[in-house]
């Protein structure tokens, strides 16, 4: 089973490199001086409390928001001409926080549309890819004819991820996959995410659920009020007291 499109990618291991990235809404910086790196086949997580700017970060990376600073994706520096469409074609895919499914379409149609851009440029392997996605998420196979709007929360998240995988991404951006899900479902979703890593796709996982994210990630960053305050191997972050403090306001800092 191979979901990743790995032609001509050998030796180049840094998929995404970000330096001095800032995003502002009006005069306020929502993100400031962000620097991070994602390697091929690696799960990198950005954790942080509500309102820290995590979603803004992903929206900025996929081209939905204008940015200042350096983004190097697949060894290519992004210029002013970057756009969502262009990045999607280059294999960057976002699974958004709100899922953004096509509610009145069947599960299968949602998945097919995930491969829209590949279809457009001439790839006709959608049926095989869809089988691979069904292998990863057998539940979607069972629900294939059901309207996306009628799925349960966990199934929606699976569909959103499955739809993203249909594009055979090189970099998968996941925005709060645990949002609103029950603990058992979260466990299932996260187990799947850690499996995806084995397929060689690079994953940038943004999460509020710090423990779950750090347990499957290789490397983690802590985002706090628009700035990265902490980073390190995720095993080390898991036990770092400062992570707890940043979440619950126990630090009494400032």
């Amino acid at each position, binding site marked *: 089973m191979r979901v990743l499109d790995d032609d001509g990618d050998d030796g180049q291991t840094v998929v995404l490199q970000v330096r001095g990235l800032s995003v502002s809404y009006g005069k306020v910086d929502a993100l400031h001086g962000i620097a991070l790196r994602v390697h091929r086949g690696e799960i990198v997580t950005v954790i942080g409390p509500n309102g820290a700017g995590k979603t803004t970060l992903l929206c900025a990376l996929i081209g939905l928001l204008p940015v200042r600073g350096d983004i190097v994706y697949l060894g290519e520096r992004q210029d002013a001409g970057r756009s969502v469409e262009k990045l999607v074609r280059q294999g960057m895919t976002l699974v958004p926080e709100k899922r953004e499914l*096509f509610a009145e*379409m069947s599960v299968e149609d949602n998945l097919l549309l995930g491969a829209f851009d590949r279809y457009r440029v001439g790839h006709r392997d959608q049926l095989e890819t869809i089988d691979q996605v069904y292998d990863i998420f057998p539940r979607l196979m069972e629900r294939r004819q059901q309207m996306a709007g009628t799925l349960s929360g966990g199934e929606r998240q699976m569909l959103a991820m499955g739809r993203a995988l249909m594009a055979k991404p090189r970099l998968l951006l996941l925005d709060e996959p645990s949002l609103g899900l029950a603990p058992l479902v979260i466990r299932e979703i996260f187990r799947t995410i850690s499996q995806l890593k084995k397929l060689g796709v690079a994953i940038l996982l943004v999460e509020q659920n710090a423990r779950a994210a750090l347990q499957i990630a290789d490397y983690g960053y802590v985002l706090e009020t628009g700035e990265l305050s902490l980073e390190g191997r995720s095993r080390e972050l898991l036990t770092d007291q400062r992570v707890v403090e940043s979440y619950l306001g126990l630090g009494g800092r400032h």
Partner: protein
Amino acid sequence: MDLQIALLLGQDGLTNGAIYALLALALVLVFAVTRVIFIPQGEFVAYGALTLASLQAGRLPGTVWLLLALGAVIAVVDGSLAIRARQFKRLPWIVLLSCGVPLLLVGALLAVSAATLPLPVQVLLALMLVVPLGPMIYRLAYQPVAEASVLVLLIVSVAVHVTLIGIGLLFFGAEGSRTPPFTDVSLEIGDALLQGQTILVVVASVVLIVALYFFFERTIYGKALRATAMNRTGARLMGISGSLAGLLSFTLAASIGAFSGILISPITTIYYDSGFVIGLKGFVGAIIGGLASYPVAAAGAVLVGLLESYSSFWASAFKEVIVFTLIIPVLLWRSLKARHVEEE
């Protein structure tokens, strides 16, 4: 009114209703995908009919010049954008597509005498001249303000509508045209005489509606359009850009409009400004469907056709008044159905 007249009126109403239904579908489609209320839909009806009439009369239809002019403007606009973005490789393609294709069409028209060609070829030529205007107009008038409010897009639509009316007068003159019927066949069922042209219109409309259904249900591009209508952000994240969806839906709407015009031109005399009122009747149908439901819109449009036909018998002077006043109870009904509306 005896049964025979009733049947005759019903036949008329059904014929017009089928056309209105096609237009209503196009209007719902364009609105759902782009949020544009496509007032100029009717002009495509008139342009389609009048272009065919010009071809049959052996004249070079004015639409040719419009096609060339729009092509040239697009070449300049897109070309300068490409130069600014330093994408020089795209330049030849832009010029070829927006100027070369129209030029090729003009060349072909000048080379052969269109009046002597068989009817299907004439129809095809007329469609080839009119349909590209749809995406071209989208590119120039709508795409630059695609993110604006429904209100702004509506005003743009009205502006495009009056421009096309003026251009229509310039190209086709104030006299109307009527093309010869596609068929002289007629069927006698009991007392009633069923015109071949009527059957043709209804059958063609049904075929087109079925084809549209398949396009939306079975092809990935059709699904992409539906996806854009349901969730713009979601579609964008799949690489379905707003402008692609816009161009596609305008191409469809222009095809439906031009084809409708060609279908009815043997039945009614079409003037440069006839399309507007025809299109508006499609709108009444579309509004019955709340600008959202395809089947209700189509059914509503057929109802409009029938209402128009029967009211022309009872009160012919007030035919238009009755049809357009229908919108008031319809809106009232929709308004009572609507529970909570927050526009944003």
